[in-house]
């Protein structure tokens, strides 16, 4: 299982939404990170063949995708950023419809509907109209539709954006469970959702893939540079101008700031960095070194 993206670019009018992107996916979970407008959805749409790329090639099992499009799409489960279900259908209707459109045999379809809705805890809502669903329910329903035919490739565009903490954990576990024999690409800006489940991180900034690697590799960028500094409110006001601060909290009436100290000038307890710190490091405007 191998999906290769070579020199991929996408131009909207004058503006490049995606520029010279290169990476290779095999099995496992890949997290695609980047702020709003960085080109995540654009990249995913290109991978799903919904969008024509301006430059570059896409290879599935070393073959140009346009030459094996049907076989490729059979293997693909896509979840778009905005739900696009039929509001007047019940979830059962919608999933049956998707099954019919995908040419799944009836008995297998019913079995799968039962399985996937159970996994995302929507079994009770199967006969409810989608119009009456909450945002989080709709998102889980779209996830069901993507998982329905048990595809090898899963492309999920912000699957957890509207979920409550328990459902986030549920979806994380679900993705971990199914990831063994699948290739899963998740776009998100909720870093904590993918921090521990993703094997690889792809980080997009203004359409350019600026970092790519495992969690440990990324965290290494900030080795020894994240410090927890004991401070006061007045002091904090002044040095928040100079340093990137990833969080502040009170502990025993003492203000503690988590600071990215790139030049090693501050006194404080060195802590291990996390992906959030890396994200701040890469995108916190003033301090971004890249």
């Amino acid at each position: 299982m191998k999906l290769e993206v070579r020199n991929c670019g996408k131009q909207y009018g004058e503006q490049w939404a995606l520029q010279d992107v290169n990476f290779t996916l095999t099995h496992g979970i890949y997290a695609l990170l980047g702020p709003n407008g960085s080109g995540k959805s654009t990249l995913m749409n290109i991978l799903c063949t919904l969008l024509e790329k301006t430059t570059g090639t896409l290879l599935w099992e070393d073959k140009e995708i346009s030459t094996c499009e049907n076989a490729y799409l059979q293997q693909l489960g896509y979840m778009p950023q905005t739900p696009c279900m039929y509001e007047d259908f019940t979830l059962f209707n919608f999933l049956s419809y998707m099954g019919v459109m995908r040419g799944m045999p009836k008995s297998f379809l019913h079995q799968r509907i039962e399985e996937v809705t159970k996994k995302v805890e929507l079994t009770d809502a199967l006969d409810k109209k989608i119009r009456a669903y909450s945002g989080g329910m709709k998102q889980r329903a779209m996830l069901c539709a993507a998982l329905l035919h048990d595809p090898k490739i899963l492309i999920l565009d912000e699957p957890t954006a509207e979920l409550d903490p328990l459902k986030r954990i549920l979806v994380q576990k679900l993705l971990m469970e199914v990831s063994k024999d699948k290739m899963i690409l998740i776009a998100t800006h909720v870093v904590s959702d993918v921090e521990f489940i993703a094997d690889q991180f792809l980080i997009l900034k203004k359409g350019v893939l600026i970092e790519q690697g495992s969690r440990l590799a990324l965290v290494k960028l900030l080795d020894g540079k994240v410090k927890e500094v004991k401070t006061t409110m007045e002091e904090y006001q002044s040095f928040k101008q100079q340093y990137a601060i990833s969080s502040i909290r009170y502990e025993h009436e003492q203000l503690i700031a988590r600071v990215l100290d790139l030049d090693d000038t501050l006194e404080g307890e060195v802590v291990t960095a996390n992906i959030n710190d890396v994200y701040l490091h890469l995108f916190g405007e003033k301090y971004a070194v890249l």
Partner: protein
Amino acid sequence: MFIFIYLVKNMLYFELKKIFTNRRILICMVVLLIGVHLFSGYQSLQQEWTASEYKQLHERLDQLPTQDRMAFLKESFDKSEYHLRVNDTQADVSYYTDTYGLAWMEAIQKQKNEVFFSRQVLKQVEKEEQNRIGYDRFRKGIKKQYALNHKVSIFQKKEDPFVGQRAVKTMDAYETLNITMPASIKGSYGIEQLLSQSYLDIALLLFLVFLFYEYVVREEEHQQLSYMQLTKHGRLAYYMIKIVALWFTCSFFIFLTSFTLWIQESLLYGFVDLSACIQSIPFCMRITKAYSIL
């Protein structure tokens, strides 16, 4: 092949479900239906005669033997004509004196309060009656035309094959057409109205535009079309099925409006036997097939 039918059936089921569970489409359908009915009701109010008058006249006619009906209509026409002139001393009444006599005129003068059929409704009914009895004559006319064509071609020695063939065809068509005109065509006006209404077409057009917007354009806007493209049957088959579903829904709409309008018109002008031959409606007289109205 079996799989194909199974697939089409299933896909069509969901497409129709989409349309018939869509509240906006259903509302549009109901609104148009009500609109068509109001409009047709308004139109019958615009007429110079009322539906009850029409119905009454047909009831009177049905009591008479067929050969007396035309005479009755003629007399009724004259009656109402004369009634208008009763108080006009200047008017020339010699026609009435000659045809009906003074007693007839006096009777009308006395019946101040009786309702006379208006001339318009009499004309309409006369047209229907003419058609009923005139159909045989019409057929004979065709035969004559055929004979004439034949003759001409013989004299000219130069046969235009098309004219000849067409005449033969027409003749055959009418010859083999074995229809019996119903003895009474009470209320065919309702059907005539129904079939000649252009507002039905306008309603259908509006419905089609709205349906297309709701069912195709909106799906495109909500990225449902592109989402479906990723599925196995999401391309050509999908579009074909969508066209079939559109066609089906429009047919359903036509049926619905026609049927309810038929009921409305029938309540106004009297029920027509829908299994009667279609030629009993005046403007469908030339049809050469033995269709029933339905």
